[in-house]
């Protein structure tokens, strides 16, 4: 016969999992974006987007992304409450001082990215999902990456992209 509190710890853990599943659905996964070459004060042009990490169960899992994909993730994260088409994303990123002057605080041109184009962004979205797939596999978290990099259809054939995640930025000087 089972003792009175035999399953109490199991029940408690099930409640934690219930909360975790609910949070994943409502706010998405947790992302950490690190900027470096920060020069005191607020986040400003000249910094570098060092990388993107998935935070899961108190551990960090690097998302393997190229320079362009890091910039795209940073942009989508900063504008995550509104879906934007590939054309809108390209237009905005090409005039945004943060992306135009990316990494210039490091006094090297190696971190600069050439401009974004509408057609390139469509391709980048697929690669971005692949990056998330790899990080989530490492984290043993079986979420479909299309639930993170979301495509929203419109009344016409335009597709809008949005990042569903709770995001935190961290800045360092070096």
């Amino acid at each position: 016969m089972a003792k009175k509190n035999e399953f109490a710890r199991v029940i408690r853990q099930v409640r934690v999992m219930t909360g975790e599943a609910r949070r994943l659905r409502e706010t998405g996964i947790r992302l950490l974006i690190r900027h470096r070459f920060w020069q005191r004060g607020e986040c400003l042009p000249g910094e570098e987007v060092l990388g993107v990490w998935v935070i899961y169960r108190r551990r960090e899992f690097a998302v393997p992304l190229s320079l362009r994909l890091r910039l795209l993730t940073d942009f989508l994260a900063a504008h995550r409450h509104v879906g934007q088409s590939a054309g809108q994303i390209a237009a905005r990123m090409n005039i945004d001082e943060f992306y135009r002057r990316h990494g210039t605080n490091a006094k090297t041109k190696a971190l600069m990215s050439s401009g974004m184009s509408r057609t390139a962004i469509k391709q980048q979205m697929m690669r971005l999902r692949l990056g998330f797939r790899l990080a989530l596999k490492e984290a043993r978290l079986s979420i479909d990456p299309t639930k993170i990099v979301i495509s929203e259809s419109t009344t016409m054939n335009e597709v809008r992209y949005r990042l569903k995640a709770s995001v935190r930025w961290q800045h360092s000087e070096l």
Partner: protein
Amino acid sequence: MRETILLVDPDSLHREQCAAWLRERGYVVIGPDVSPVLKGMAEIDVCRIDFIVVELSGVRLTDEIKRTLRKLTSLRKPDGFPILVLACTELDHGDDYQLDLEELGWRFVFYGEEK
């Protein structure tokens, strides 16, 4: 909406007791008849399940079992979200046992008496 738990426990009496506890707390519990080596777990209707609770008190982690458990780790609901898995055991199988399970991405709870 009430969450549905797939309760995998090779001990049918123990399974019924645990299921009763979970049902009392508002969960819907379904439980397949599985052998002590978890055979029969391959075909699961993932549409109905939110979580899986696996009782491993009497189960040794052989390669075959690990393969089965690894399959459970990658299960996903049709809406793209994961089915979270909890392993529980009343017997202390040692640290490596717990580490092996946590490497699979599982949560682990030991509910036996501490020595």
